[in-house]
């Protein structure tokens, strides 16, 4: 994902390691630079260094290494309704798990969507498992409302979900999904939560120019997804840190 936008900014630059599975050695944090005039919009400034390797592999940076992977997600749908709040996505008792701790990150995944009422017969993650069989969460209005807990998009990503396609989002959840790069938050134009069923096989295709689609292979229907808009560059960059590095706001990790 970062690779293609890089080429559009500066064809001479090449992105090196993005999918490094090892933790980079710690570096001395140099003086953090602030440009004299802040960017008033999302215009990307030219990259300041070529060496850049996040010390922790986020799902977005792993996906960036393979443009194909970024562009399409295949999988089963898990359908929920309106106003799915953060307590249903990750019950508060599990918030003691620290997401930046790799071991606890996995545990968070095992609790994803366990707050849903019993009326949801299919569980997102089977008891005893840490991963879900569903890659695409289909939601209604105001998905992710409630708390600012980042554990919400994180647990979905940790469980293995790749994208959420909802009619609308609560802002903090959307922002956290974008900042972490854990799941792609996509906007449907119609009530896909009423047209899809849990277990449907689907593909989410992210296309250049912001036009994306959700294809439900089980029903044969295709749905246009709204352009991501302002959050696009941040998602494409791989989260807020990567975006800020691109914009020259903070130095790259290996500077």
């Amino acid at each position, binding site marked *: 994902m970062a690779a293609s936008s890089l080429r559009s900014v500066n064809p001479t630059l090449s992105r090196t390691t993005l999918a490094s599975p090892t933790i980079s050695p710690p570096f001395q944090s140099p003086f953090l630079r602030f440009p004299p005039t*802040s*960017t*008033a919009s999302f215009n990307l400034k030219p990259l300041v260094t070529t060496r850049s390797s996040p010390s922790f592999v986020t799902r977005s940076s792993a996906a960036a290494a393979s443009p194909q992977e970024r562009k399409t997600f295949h999988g089963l749908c898990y359908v929920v309704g309106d106003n799915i709040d953060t307590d249903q996505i990750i019950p508060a008792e599990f918030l*003691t798990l620290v997401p930046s701790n790799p071991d606890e990150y996995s545990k968070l995944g095992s609790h994803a969507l366990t707050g849903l009422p019993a009326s949801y017969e299919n569980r997102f993650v089977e008891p005893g498992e840490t991963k879900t069989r569903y890659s695409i969460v289909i939601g209604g209005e105001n998905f992710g409302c*409630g708390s600012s807990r*980042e554990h919400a998009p994180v647990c979905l990503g940790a469980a293995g979900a790749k994208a959420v396609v909802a009619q609308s989002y609560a802002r903090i959840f959307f922002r956290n999904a974008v900042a972490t790069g854990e799941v792609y938050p996509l906007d449907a134009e119609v009530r896909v939560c009423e047209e899809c069923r849990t277990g449907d096989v689907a593909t989410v295709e992210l296309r250049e120019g912001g036009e994306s689609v959700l294809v439900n292979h089980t029903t044969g229907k295709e749905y246009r997804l709204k352009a991501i808009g302002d959050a696009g560059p941040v998602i494409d960059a791989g989260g807020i840190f990567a975006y*800020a590095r691109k914009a020259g706001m903070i130095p790259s990790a290996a500077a």
Partner: protein
Amino acid sequence: MAPQRSSSTSGSVKTGMTMTEKILAKAAEKSQVVPGDNIWVNVDVLMTHDVCGPGAFGIFKREFGENAKVWDSEKIVVIPDHYIFTTDKRANRNVDIMREHCREQNIKYFYDITDLGDFRANPDYKGVCHVALAQEGHCRPGEVLLGTDSHTCTAGAFGQFATGIGNTDAGFVLGTGKILLKVPPTMRFILDGEMPSYLQAKDLILQIIGEISVAGATYKTMEFSGTTIESLTMEERMTLCNMVVEAGGKNGVIPPDATTFNYVENRTSVPFQPVYSDGNASFVADYRFDVSKLEPVVAKPHSPDNRALARECKDVKIDRVYIGSCTGGKTEDFMAAAKLFHAAGKQVKVPTFLVPATQKVWMDVYALPVPGAGGKTCAQIFEEAGCDTPTSPSCGACLGGPADTYARLNEPQVCVSTTNRNFPGRMGHKEGQIYLASPYTAAASALTGHVTDPREFLQ
């Protein structure tokens, strides 16, 4: 992507700005911003607590390096409050983790707790972050305050921009002192009229959320003004702004006035600059309320916008009452409940749990005489009414918490609560039924064992 209107191209023609636009413009070192602008903003205060703090610092170190230093050790306030009085080892560990970070970074404001058996043995410990921020003088007009908690919007009561962010954003702020924000448009809520004696700010905000729905203010600012607002105390203003997030709002804001300055200047000597919306500012919506006509309301299970008149729910049998949280656990909230209990002179019919938000609130509950009660304190009145003893200050069961949290809903019971959310499972049990209400309504309901309009006891 929508075309960006950058302020640098608008020349010398200045558009009127709302309070929020002005605060953000100043924080971004710009003369002008319009809704939709994406700007890098300087942060005045960053708050975090025991649940999100470890994650935020974890990200900070991962991205800026193990030896990185925070941008300003005096602008970060670390307030353990969520899962404190529990035997849950991970919860306890998280407070220890924050202690280590604060020590390493020389964080000036860390309201630590080490003796979990007696909160009073911890001189630094405060309790609920949003109430502590205000009480410790960290809320000031015109500033930008961020917190790793959705109810950070509470501080908007002080005429500042305050909103909740996640761990990753917080990790970014820790290193840079800046955040990327999109300027929100403002919805204006003008509340006029004399506040009836049985009505509280909680009724006002539940009324509004019921009006516009849980997504009615998504990505927007909720600006509250009018004669009623001017008559509210700071704590009541905090209750109002506290639940802005329940309408999806980005931030809530109230124009600062003498009430604000009096409160703030008694708690901090840091200078501040209040801002006000221009007369020709643009608002995306205008709502007007005649408060004198409003009645006590509740939010029925399972949504904060499931509004109903309290008197229309009088047949709903309840199992317990919970008075606490940043929304309804402040000193004035307990004063109100005590006032109603005293006026009624009866005993509660259901277990009534009292969770003061902070140490200071707890002390007020035990020390301050309740007006009109012949010198009795809240604590005395609560005891006479048969309530549970006020417990150690923290977020408590507002969000359920670890299994051994005091007053957690562990069975599918019906609870009237002065807290802020009632989605399924919010206080613990998935089939628990939570009615959100004002302290008056909560106290009245405790006395009858049913959801009860406080006018039954207050007229």
